[in-house]
């Protein structure tokens, strides 16, 4: 789409500059590791805990020499940067980028835990949990955008899901009914988006922003007017941890992945189902046809409007489910604007993941990690103000959106209304 519209980035020149920019960035990161993270006066080793303090096989802490580890990681980043500058990595750029980012993060953790220890397993579990609403948001975006409708109302749908699930679960004393209600509420909001975008041809981004404002206004209004005087309507029972028997005992992985609440497992199920549906079934082929070339899809007898309505509503239900996580899976009560931009971060994860479920999940893990890190590091004694750590997920989002938009390809008819005839 960028290439055809051609308004902003002449694609080829852009690709070349981007290769160079990436190389310079890798070298800069290596320099930061050497000059900042390797300076660990008075501390020799960093320890990483690999257990979550429950039964099963206990692993010993991994203890590494702080400075030497940092220099090694800097060397890796620097050599990849040099290779990037000299000959580039072509299509494998994503893998290389991933390696450099991981090296940088490990160096950072080594520095942060120098002379002490950091619970690596806990950090990983927290990463996974914090990526849950982001992943659901991204999956919602995929459902809508693969059919050609841009959904920037994910934030509002998450918020609505969070509100409705808290109220309904409290009123009925049943968290599962709360989840169902959240799914329904997300679907309703999405139906409104679909009507505005498909029937009334409202600019899809404006429609999405309107729905976000509406959701923020309504939930804040109702929270003040209804929930504050009736706190019993805002005290749902949270989902407990479900341990998968036997598999939980797998070292590290078992503790991180298989001791979570139902939302984490629902997320994995949703990723798997959506992946198969989109890329392995006739259903998915039709959805993608509608998103890429609605006229052609229409010509072969696919009802474009029906597919779009259905997918947008399904997307809203997905986001509603993700919203329920905030109240039923995480904090246990609704607070005004508690989603704090997670819907938009989900959109960035969708773009990062190339409009595919698995890729989006991996991208969501990156954001979840940035989020988990800032909450954990504020405990550690490092000379960075907590406010700057809190900026991390948002800055990562900006970098991802800026660095990748030219590289990834959106569905061709994304955001364009279809007018039959």
């Amino acid at each position, binding site marked *: 789409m960028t290439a055809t519209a051609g308004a902003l980035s002449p694609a080829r020149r852009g690709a070349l500059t981007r290769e160079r920019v990436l190389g310079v960035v890798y070298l800069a990161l290596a320099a930061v590791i050497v000059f900042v993270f390797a300076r660990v006066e008075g501390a020799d080793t960093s320890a990483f805990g690999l257990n979550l303090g429950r039964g099963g096989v206990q692993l010993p802490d991994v203890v590494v020499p702080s400075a030497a580890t940092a220099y090694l990681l800097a060397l890796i980043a620097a050599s990849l940067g040099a290779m990037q500058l000299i000959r580039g990595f072509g299509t494998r750029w994503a893998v290389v980028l991933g390696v450099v980012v991981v090296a940088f993060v490990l160096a950072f953790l080594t520095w942060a835990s120098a002379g002490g220890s950091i619970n690596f397993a806990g950090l990983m579990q927290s990463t996974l949990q914090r990526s849950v609403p982001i992943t659901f948001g991204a999956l919602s975006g995929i459902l809508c955008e693969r059919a050609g409708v841009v959904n920037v109302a994910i934030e509002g749908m998450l918020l609505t899901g969070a509100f409705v699930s808290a109220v309904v679960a409290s009123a009925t004393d049943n968290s599962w009914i709360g989840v169902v209600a959240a799914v329904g509420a997300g679907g309703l909001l999405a139906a409104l988006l679909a009507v505005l975008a498909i029937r009334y041809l*409202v600019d899809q981004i404006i429609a999405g922003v309107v729905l976000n404002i509406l959701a923020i206004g309504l939930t804040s209004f109702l929270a003040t007017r209804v929930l504050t005087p009736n706190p019993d309507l805002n005290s749902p029972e949270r989902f407990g941890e479900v341990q998968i028997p036997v598999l939980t005992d797998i070292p590290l992985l078992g503790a991180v992945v298989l001791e979570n609440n139902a939302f984490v497992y629902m997320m994995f199920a949703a990723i798997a189902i959506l992946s198969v549906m989109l890329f392995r079934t006739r259903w998915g082929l039709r959805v993608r046809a509608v998103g890429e070339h609605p006229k052609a899809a229409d010509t072969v007898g696919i009802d474009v409007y029906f597919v779009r309505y259905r997918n947008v509503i399904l997307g809203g239900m997905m986001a509603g489910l993700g919203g329920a996580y905030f109240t039923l899976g995480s904090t246990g009560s609704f607070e005004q604007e508690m989603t704090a931009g997670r819907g938009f971060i989900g959109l960035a994860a969708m773009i990062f993941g190339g409009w595919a479920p698995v890729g989006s999940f991996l991208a969501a893990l990156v954001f979840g990690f940035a989020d988990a890190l800032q909450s954990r590091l504020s405990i550690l004694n490092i000379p960075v*103000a907590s406010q700057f750590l809190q900026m991390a997920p948002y800055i990562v989002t900006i970098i991802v959106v800026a660095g990748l*938009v*030219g590289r990834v390809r959106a569905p061709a008819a994304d955001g364009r209304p279809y007018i039959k005839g």
Partner: protein
Amino acid sequence: MSERAADQAPAPETMGVGPPERPSTPTRGQPALVSWLLGVPRALVVPSLALLTALAIGAVIIILSDRDFVTQFGSNPGAALGAGLTSVRDAYVGLIGGSVGSPRAISETLLQATPLILTGLAVAVGFRAGLFNIGAEGQLYAGAASSIFVGFALVGLPAFIHLPLAIIAGIAGGALWGFIPGFLKARTGAHEVIVTIMLNYVAFRFIDWLLNQPFFQREGRTDQISRFVEPSAELPRLIEGFRTHWGIFLALAAAVFVSWLLFRSTKGFEFRAVGLNPSAARYAGMSIGGTLILAMMVSGGLAGLAGASEMLGSNKTLTPGFSPGWGFDAIALALLGGARPLGVVFAALLFGALRAGATPMQVSTGIPIDLVVVIQALVIMFIAAPALVRGIYRIRVERRIGSEVFTKGWGA
């Protein structure tokens, strides 16, 4: 029958020689209200109906969330409805009384309208250049922070130097915060909606940090509050005893400037050309990237000026939540005003009245301020989908209102 004939063969009087007082719209057989509505400029019909509809839906929401209504509805629907309608009446009477009911209320309305005019203009400039700036809130905070810093850090300057410096600092802070999404959009194609939203959060965290720094925080305080602005950098009040200040004239001057910029200057022509059709603009030799960056900087600068005017005129000190969401209200304003400066000014007066009336309404009736946000969202929805309003009221309008407002997909 006669109308159709007139269409096919224009009668002499429609050629300009007929009696001039004759109305061009047919009035025969139509109720007075409709013909009056047809006499109102077309541009006003949909916005006013949108506002009325939004207020009506707001009323329904008030009734449905009313405790008496919910508890009594099963036993006595009539009394329940009565209680609900009483709530609605109290809410809207409170809203109107708090916005235009007294000289003080009018002063509060103007006070609220000041930042709204500026942020509304900010979003409108963005719309004209095809940019959807939802970061006016963050730009407002960036402008407020830099303006208050200049306002308290420079001591001993005469007012005619200090005040302009503090105002310029505010504009510069906002422009810098607008530059980032503009630059990223121009260079990488990063969509401004995501970048500006993320920058809002970054700005909030940054302000949090600033307000904990010894050079910024007021001496002897542990809570998040900045030092007071020096008297030499204060925007004076219009009338002693009322809170409205000279910022309203800054805002009106900005509206005149934006009007000139968009419709009388070469740069403004480029903004609109790039907004309407980037390919054609590029073919005509305009720099798309440069125009986008400049448009975002102007937009951010206007929002920054809103922050400066608040700091120097009414607040005099920076606190984390000093804006009730003016930067987000701005989206509704720009749409309601059709991205025209004069339209934005009127829309801002209207929403300023809503904002000003909302606080007394909450105090006297307990109905949360957020009702105003709901009404705003509904107004934008109806403005953005004029077909919706026309469908409800069965109006036939040929021209699409609001068609100058549009955005672009991820890639473009």
